[in-house]
């Protein structure tokens, strides 16, 4: 079992600097600073690391897109972690804050950045406190501040708290929020690499992405790239939740069969029930029927199975679940979290919720499944940001694979009407 991010995760005192250092932490900085910044970008490119926040964009490539010769530049670490099912960043931040700081130092050096912010969701107040303490230790030891380790490189890192809005995990909404605005997404282009925070070139990366960087730089990109498949390199934290015996965050090499994660690491289905479906990458990705449980857990495998790796939240549903009820809950979430900026998402999520509510109450008239499909068609790729498409994922995939669950409700309604 290769463990990179979770190697010492349950070690007593890992959140403190002496213990982190004793187990190799910050060890690679001195050598890294001897290299040209661009060399580090090339190393991250060569590692094959892709963004772990949801979109899976190649990290080194993103860093190389920064507008040339425009300064200052900013780094924003996305610690908003609000995608339902996802709780892996929380474990990293709670138990290993210095790993993120080290990753941010390396990214900042590589991208010639001198200011970094960690954007925590507002409910992570406890984690921001832990991070403040870790940052203080890092400043004291000379890993942050002016002329770090005598290398002539300056960096400040600050914590910032959001205040309860899922959409602020979307990178451009995050920037607005950090600038003291309503957390509505921005038009792209310009992309953050060109005009981000305060209209300056900005790198935005997920916590887990940045936490993978120290290993890549210290151990070498080849070692990282040797893990996984052709298009999915390295390891991924998977938050396994729902109807499993041992829910938890597990670090797996990409390409591991989903079956091994559910039945091996997570101990199988509770009460030895039957697996019905799984949502492999957080609430925003399509659900997958149990028949595809041998799908390799990686970007291309899950895409071939009609879904996505997303944030790496594997939500497991057993045979007792009616998919309509689960879908209703998720659509209700997207309705609440729609920022209201664009019509198809703002109105569409509400209509979907209303129809699903009626179906569950046995009041569906006409053909509600048709109506749901129709609304989803009108939202698909027509919303301003990806939240709109996320909202229809459970509806479309649920109808496709579990139409019988819808019909169960509709038949009850018909029987009620006839009786």
């Amino acid at each position, binding site marked *: 079992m290769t463990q990179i991010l979770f190697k010492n995760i349950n070690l007593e005192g890992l959140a403190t600097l002496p213990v982190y250092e004793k187990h190799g932490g910050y060890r690679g900085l001195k050598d890294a600073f001897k290299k040209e910044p661009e060399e580090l970008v090339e190393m991250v490119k060569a590692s094959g690391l892709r963004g772990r926040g949801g979109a899976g964009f190649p990290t080194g490539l993103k860093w190389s897109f920064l507008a040339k010769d425009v300064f200052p530049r900013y780094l924003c670490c996305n610690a908003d972690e609000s995608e339902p099912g*996802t709780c892996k960043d929380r474990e990293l931040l709670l138990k290993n804050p210095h790993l993120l700081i080290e990753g941010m130092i390396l990214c900042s050096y590589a991208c010639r950045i001198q200011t970094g912010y960690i954007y925590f969701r507002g409910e992570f107040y*406890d984690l921001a406190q832990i991070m403040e303490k870790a940052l203080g230790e890092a400043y004291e030891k000379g890993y942050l501040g002016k002329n770090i380790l005598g290398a002539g490189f300056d960096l400040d890192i600050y914590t910032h708290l959001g205040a309860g809005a899922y959409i602020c995990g979307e990178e451009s909404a995050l920037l607005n929020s950090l600038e003291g605005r309503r957390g509505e997404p921005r038009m792209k282009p310009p992309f953050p690499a060109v005009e981000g925070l305060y209209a300056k070139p900005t790198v935005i990366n997920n916590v887990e992405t940045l936490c993978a960087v120290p290993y890549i730089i210290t151990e070498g990109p080849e070692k990282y790239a040797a893990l996984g498949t052709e298009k999915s390199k390295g390891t991924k934290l998977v*938050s396994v939740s729902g109807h499993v015996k041992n829910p938890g965050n597990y670090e797996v090499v990409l390409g591991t069969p989903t079956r091994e994660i559910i039945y091996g690491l997570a101990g199988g289905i509770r009460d030895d029930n039957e697996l019905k479906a799984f949502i492999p990458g957080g609430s925003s990705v399509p659900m997958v029927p149990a028949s595809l449980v041998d799908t390799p857990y990686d970007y291309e495998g899950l895409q071939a199975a009609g879904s996505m790796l997303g944030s790496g939240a594997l939500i497991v549903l057993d045979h007792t679940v009616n998919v309509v*009820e689960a879908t209703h809950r998720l659509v209700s979430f997207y309705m609440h979290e729609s920022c209201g900026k664009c019509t198809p998402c703002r109105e569409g999520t509400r209509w979907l919720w209303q129809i699903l509510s009626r179906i569950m109450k046995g009041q569906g008239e006409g053909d509600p499944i048709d109506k749901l499909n129709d609304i989803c068609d009108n939202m698909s790729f027509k919303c301003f940001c990806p939240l709109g498409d996320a909202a229809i994922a459970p509806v479309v995939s649920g109808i496709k694979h579990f139409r019988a669950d819808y019909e169960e409700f509709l038949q009850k309604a018909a029987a009620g009407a006839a009786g």
Partner: protein
Amino acid sequence: MFAFNEASEKEIEKILGKYPDRQSALLPLLTVTQRQERHISPEAMVEIGRRLDVSPAYVQSVASFYTMYHAEKVGRYLILFCINISCQLNGCDDLLAYTAKKLGIEVGQTTPDEKFTLLREECLAACTGAPMMRINDTFYEFLTPAKIDEIIDSLE
């Protein structure tokens, strides 16, 4: 009348040092206010606007976007009960009803003694510990009725 207390002032000084642009301190100042007052009053918005050189109406428009700022005062213990998918699959609906009954209030209400406010919350990123709730800054996982009793009864 609204005024920041000493601890808040100290916090604010630290916050203002973080950003090249004062407006970035808006959410942090709202957070300091919410934690001090347990709600955001119109007077507080005026004061925040004054500090950051933005209008009270602007403060209001930003504050209203975020769910953690409350116009109505919340209880000394703010209970956020996750009702999203992983918690739903693990029986949160019954536990939420149990908690409301125990406190003698409906979800969304505050007890008359201002001790508890109970709210439905979307996923709080503790899904592998479902069902869960957050009380003030603490997460409680793998809830059962007995555990809820124990936690709530232990709060002063």
